[in-house]
């Protein structure tokens, strides 16, 4: 369960996030949708605790991301945008490194790493060094690494960027599996169709503000647009009209 309550974040003069609030409940997939530079990544970075909000609060399963950031991180699996691997380590070693850092039981680590490798279908290249991996291979390993400690909350920043159709499909299947297991999945994207295909709730962000936070049908109704892309554009114009 992720709660975001009116957070603000500025970088110098740029006011990137201006009072974003939403909730991402367990057992549901929540999409953070918005154009480039809308403040999606900044919001997610606050949630996985690498940035501190200037104002407002956010919590992961009740643990405040600033006050109790270690506890918050325990329940997060995060895939930052453009997450990098260690090129001299094999995919398996990369994943095992994170398993160790998450303090998994030593005796469990090998099994856990093998099962996550099977889940993400990366057995073929699991024992190769990650130098020279394709974007899709890298994303899968980074995702396996983020999920190795079986976190309750999964935060994915534009996970389908640079993935081909097959890889995107398998990622979608995985996200649905996580949902069925009762996890809270929060992911960002700038592609409406992708979000529509997966999400139960969509939070549309533009200009650092929440334009609409609703289900797909709710968004269609409130914007008066049947076509999703038109609905997306209409929602963004709502905010930008105010600005």
């Amino acid at each position, binding site marked *: 369960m992720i709660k975001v309550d009116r957070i603000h974040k500025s970088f110098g003069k740029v006011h990137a996030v201006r009072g974003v609030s939403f909730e991402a409940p367990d057992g549901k997939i929540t999409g953070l949708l918005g154009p480039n530079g809308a403040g999606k990544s900044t919001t997610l970075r606050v949630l996985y605790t690498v940035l*501190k909000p200037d104002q407002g609060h956010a919590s992961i399963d009740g643990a405040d991301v600033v006050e109790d950031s270690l506890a918050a*991180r325990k329940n997060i699996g995060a895939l930052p945008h453009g997450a990098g691997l*260690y090129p001299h380590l094999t995919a398996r070693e990369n994943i095992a490194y994170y398993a160790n850092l998450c303090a998994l039981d030593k005796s469990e680590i090998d099994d856990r790493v093998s099962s996550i490798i099977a889940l993400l279908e990366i057995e073929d290249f699991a024992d190769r060094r990650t130098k020279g991996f394709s974007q899709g291979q890298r994303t899968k390993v980074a995702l396996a690494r983020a999920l190795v400690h079986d976190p309750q909350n999964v935060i994915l920043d534009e996970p389908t960027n640079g993935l081909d159709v097959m890889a995107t499909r398998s990622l979608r299947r995985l996200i649905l599996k996580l949902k069925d297991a009762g996890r809270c999945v929060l992911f960002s994207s700038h592609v409406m169709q992708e979000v529509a295909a997966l999400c139960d709730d969509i939070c549309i962000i533009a200009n650092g503000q929440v334009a609409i936070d609703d289900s797909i049908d709710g968004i269609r109704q409130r914007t008066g647009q049947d076509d999703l892309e038109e609905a997306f554009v209409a929602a963004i114009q709502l905010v930008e009209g105010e600005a």
Partner: protein
Amino acid sequence: MRTFLTVFFKEILDNLRDRRTLTSALIMGPIFGPVLFAFVINMSIDRALDDAESSMELPVVGQQYAPNLMRFLESRNIDIIEGPDDPDGAADAVKTGVHDVVLVVPEAFGEQLSDTIPARVELYSDEANSQGEKEARRARNALYAYNQQLASIRLSARGINPRVLSPINVDEIDVSTPSGRSAILLGMMSYFFIFALLMGGMYLAIDTTAGERERGSLEPLLSLPVTRGQLILGKILAACVFMAASLLLSLMSFYVVLKFMPLEQLGMTPNFGLPVVALAFLLLLPFILLGASLMTLVASFTKSYKEAQTWLSAVLIAPTLPILVVSILTLRPQIEFMFVPSLSQHLILVDMVKNEPLNGLHIAISVCSTLAIGALLTWVCARLYRREGLLG
């Protein structure tokens, strides 16, 4: 504790597989010093032997006017060769570097000599050319000796004891010991150890800060349920291990090089046996923490791998500065110097190589102050690692 060890072992494994880190830590640092050193020592030995034994060639214009002088010069191992045609040619030959030094004997030489008028010869040389300066000195000394000899003969012929010309006899006594003389040349050795030590950890320091950021692996790492302090400590310790390995290799390679150098020919017997190697290693160990944390600190301010490399090259040179100042001013070890890292290690190492009694207080201050500064820098690194700016 487990986090710390996990990071530590991962960094060791990662960097053992990185050819660039290995080259700089285990080859570049440890080999560069001894090779340069062997080269310099060999050159000094060659030149030292040159002075004493080898014959030198002296082009002379107007040999026919001073046959006795020519014979005298040849008896001093100076080979007379045909010089340029005239005195003007002599100056040109020296200017253009055809000859380093040219002796010109004017036609009137014999006549002036027999009339007991000071007979004039001209010695052309280029004082700006160190090799030429050496040859000119040798020619000049030979001419003075001939002058001396003729004067003695003239005095004797007039019934005067030639010794009246030498009222004072200066006897120079060099009190330096063979180990002491080595210290002058081996003084630069301590810098090579510090250089090798820093090289050993340089790429780790970059990799753990600017490298992780550039690769995009820092953000996921920081989103794990671990404290940042443990991450940075594990990384700094891994850098320390590489630095220690680099230092040890560097000490050992110096030990081997010195064994095979004919240093006795330069009148040097450096005290650099295995016990001194071990002591030097222990003495430099505290510097490792300082070096690792300093490099990590500098690298964490940089925006990219390239920028970090540029700045860390400056860090490689920084430890020479205090050594250089003290060498130029030829200051003797004082207690205040022991608070300055790199300088204190240098001064104590020089004493070790000179085989002089070691000052326990000096060593204690050196070890403690270096460790304290290292610990302080490590703490600053840990603080910095908590900044958001770290993400760039």
